[in-house]
């Protein structure tokens, strides 16, 4: 016992260290996500400070030009190379900082330091003219630059543009707060864990370690597995053109610096352009229509597929029928052929039936799902037949046996099938595309509708991700509702017998 102690303590400390890192990381990111969402709603575009007004501009240009004149005369045969030497940048920097920045700081509403970033300021002689750019930095945090660009026109240098980049955003400002909060929560957790450790009797401490390790492994597993979700969610908030920009220092930091809800607005077609629609049909041609259509199609399909599959699976699993196994084998064989091959003949048949373009057509051919039958049958095989015997002896009819005994026991799997079928029809793009009658935009379902706003060349990843976010919502909701039955259904099985 005593020999185990040091190993245990070391193990415990190691696990604590891992716990700390995981906890800080996770809570840090979670809080960041929270701030991101809040900020995106209140996000205001960066306001560029006023360009110096004309009179001041003149005054400033006089100062600068005087300096350049003096420089030119002091060094005859002056060329642009001279001007680009770092000492020149130094000298002019002085004039620039004291003459301009300090004087006009207030006009810009920002606390510019008088420091010129030498490495990134430059002088350039190109075929289109000469240019000097001074890059100054903001005081605190050194985050953010102000570029002042001068262009030589003849003998005179003129201030051409003032460009502010990478201002400190709200996200930056909240960074410290988020870090602090994450650390506090983590410390709390550590304290709780240590207290629990001290409370457990020494004999059971090894088990405690095992549990701790298990939890940490599971949490890491969840993080890895859920990472795509979070990536998708955070990318949906990124402005067009910035989705793929990486944070070199911390690849896990996937939260954008200037989050925006524009992608979501576009998906919901809440753009001002769209609001000017007068055509009543066009007005309804929007996300909510697609959403409801898809919801209907997917729900109906899921319900009927599950019902039919359950009935068929019951037969194959628990009932008698001549040539049952041969039939089942044949069905399994047909599962092998990819659905791609069936599309044209199925479409042909649907149209001959006059169902082209209807919502019914979108799921009718797929109501007979061999996969569903297979999955349910395999599961029903694990249900002991003695239960069925007992019910039959009690005088139950076949339908009663089916609905009162089998279905409750198979509920978790039935719900899984329901969910999967729902999912399939919710995102079944190709078939629904072929069936949709585009002349009637009101019958368009979600996957097709979302494709409508994917242009030919756009890889508007932000928009695609925000569309995916919307797609996921009903499924997640469905899943959470089904959760209750999952748990009930699963524990019921253990209680019986």
């Amino acid at each position: 016992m005593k020999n185990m102690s040091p190993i245990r303590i070391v193990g415990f400390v190691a696990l604590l260290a891992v716990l700390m890192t995981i906890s800080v990381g996770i809570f840090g990111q979670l809080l960041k996500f929270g701030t991101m969402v809040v900020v995106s709603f209140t996000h205001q575009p960066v306001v560029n400070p006023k360009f110096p007004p004309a009179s001041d501009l003149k005054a400033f240009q006089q100062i600068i030009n005087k300096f350049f004149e003096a420089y030119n005369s002091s060094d005859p045969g002056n060329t642009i190379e001279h001007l680009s030497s770092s000492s020149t940048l130094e000298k002019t920097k002085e004039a620039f900082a004291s003459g301009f920045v300090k004087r006009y700081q207030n006009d810009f509403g920002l606390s510019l330091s008088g420091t010129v970033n030498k490495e990134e300021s430059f002088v350039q002689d190109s075929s289109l003219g000469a240019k000097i750019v001074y890059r100054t930095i903001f005081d605190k945090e050194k985050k953010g630059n102000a570029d002042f660009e001068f262009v030589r026109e003849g003998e005179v240098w003129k201030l051409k543009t003032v460009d502010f980049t990478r201002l400190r955003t709200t996200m930056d400002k909240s960074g410290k707060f988020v870090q602090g909060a994450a650390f506090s929560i983590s410390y709390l957790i550590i304290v709780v864990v240590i207290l629990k450790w001290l409370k457990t009797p020494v004999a059971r401490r090894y088990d405690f370690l095992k549990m701790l390790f298990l939890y940490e492994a599971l949490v890491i597993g969840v993080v890895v597995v859920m990472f795509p979700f979070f990536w998708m969610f955070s990318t949906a908030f990124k402005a067009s053109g910035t989705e793929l920009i990486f944070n070199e220092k911390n690849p896990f930091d996937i939260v954008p610096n200037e989050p925006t809800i524009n992608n979501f607005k576009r998906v919901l077609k809440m753009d001002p352009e769209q609001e000017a629609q007068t055509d009543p049909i066009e007005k309804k041609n929007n996300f909510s229509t697609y959403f409801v259509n898809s919801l209907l199609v997917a729900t109906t399909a899921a319900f009927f597929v599950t019902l039919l599959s359950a009935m068929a699976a019951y037969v194959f699993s628990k009932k008698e029928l001549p040539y049952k196994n041969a039939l089942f084998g044949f069905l399994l064989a047909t599962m092998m052929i990819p659905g791609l091959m069936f599309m044209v003949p199925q479409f042909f048949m649907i149209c001959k039936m006059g169902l082209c373009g209807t919502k019914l057509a979108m799921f009718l051919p797929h109501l007979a799902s061999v996969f569903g039958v297979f999955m349910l049958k395999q599961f029903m095989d694990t249900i002991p037949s003695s239960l069925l015997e007992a019910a039959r002896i009690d005088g139950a009819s076949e339908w009663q046996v089916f609905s009162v005994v089998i279905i409750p026991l198979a509920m978790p799997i039935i719900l899984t099938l329901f969910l999967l079928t729902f999912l399939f029809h919710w995102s079944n793009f190709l078939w629904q595309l072929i069936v949709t009658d585009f002349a009637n935009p009101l019958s368009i379902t979600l996957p097709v509708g979302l494709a409508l706003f994917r242009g030919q060349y756009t890889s508007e990843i932000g928009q695609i991700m925000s569309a995916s976010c919307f797609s996921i919502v009903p499924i997640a909701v469905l899943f959470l509702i089904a959760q209750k039955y999952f748990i009930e259904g699963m524990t019921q099985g253990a209680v019986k017998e």
Partner: protein
Amino acid sequence: MIVSILKMKKENFSSLLFLLPFLLLFGIFLLFPIIYSFFLSFYGSPKDFSLSNLEWVGISNYVQILGIHQTPAGWKLNDPSFWWSLVVTLFYGGISIPLGIAASLGLAILLNNKLAGKNFFRSAFFLPNVLDMLVVGVIWGLIYAPKYGALAQISTIFLGKDNFLNTTGLLGSGLTALPAVVIAMILKGAGFGMILFLAALQNIPEAIYEAADIDGAGKWEQFRLITIPLLKPILIFMVITGVIGSLNAFTEIYAMTSGGPQVVVGGETLGSTSVSGYYLYKQFEGGKYGYAAAISYVLLILTLIVTFLQQKLFSAEHR
């Protein structure tokens, strides 16, 4: 006697009733397309868009897939890409099916006991199934990317800047691309198998384990001799759907590697992640419907042969 005949008929009758809706829909919407695509495999590419103007080519599609022809350099396969896709699919299935089952089963067992918060974990592991395959493929492609992918960045901490993950990336090399895709798919799909196993595990009464304990059987023995056999139907399901899934896999390849880094084998340039499902889709996309249909039937027959042989082996073993 008459009573027993009547009883039997009644049993069959109720079976038929239960089965009827399914069979009806199957017969209408699946049987005809299956027969149609079977016939399609004997025709060449359509000359126009009507379904009638097709050119009968007999078994030449099949010959093209399976046959060999003579060239100055000796006998060569007619369609090396097809055979290669079978090889790749074999690898794909060979890795993904056992790993997938192990992961799902492992998760199910872990989460089957009295762990606090297990419902949270169950939901969390199942949720990725809900994501669109295309989106998942794109995201994992970005994770695996060299230099800027999350994986590459982490690896520079442990393995320095010039490590493989950073320069070429897992998806950039013929050897590692396929396993990388497999891992991404397992991470997405493990939750599904987990639910199946969990539900089946719950169906096993505690009493059996208690009896085994009394008989002195250890945990591992109990697992081997009680749990696994009782889970057999689910295992079979996972294997069969795994096989079918591997043969028809397409979206994940399309999203992550587009057939993958090319390797040159025997003078032929072949994609290292070009599984049969992807290859078939490419034929379809290129307008070769008859050829694609022929491929799917060849695959079907091959699988049936393999299954048949396997059955024989099993029953031979049991004797």
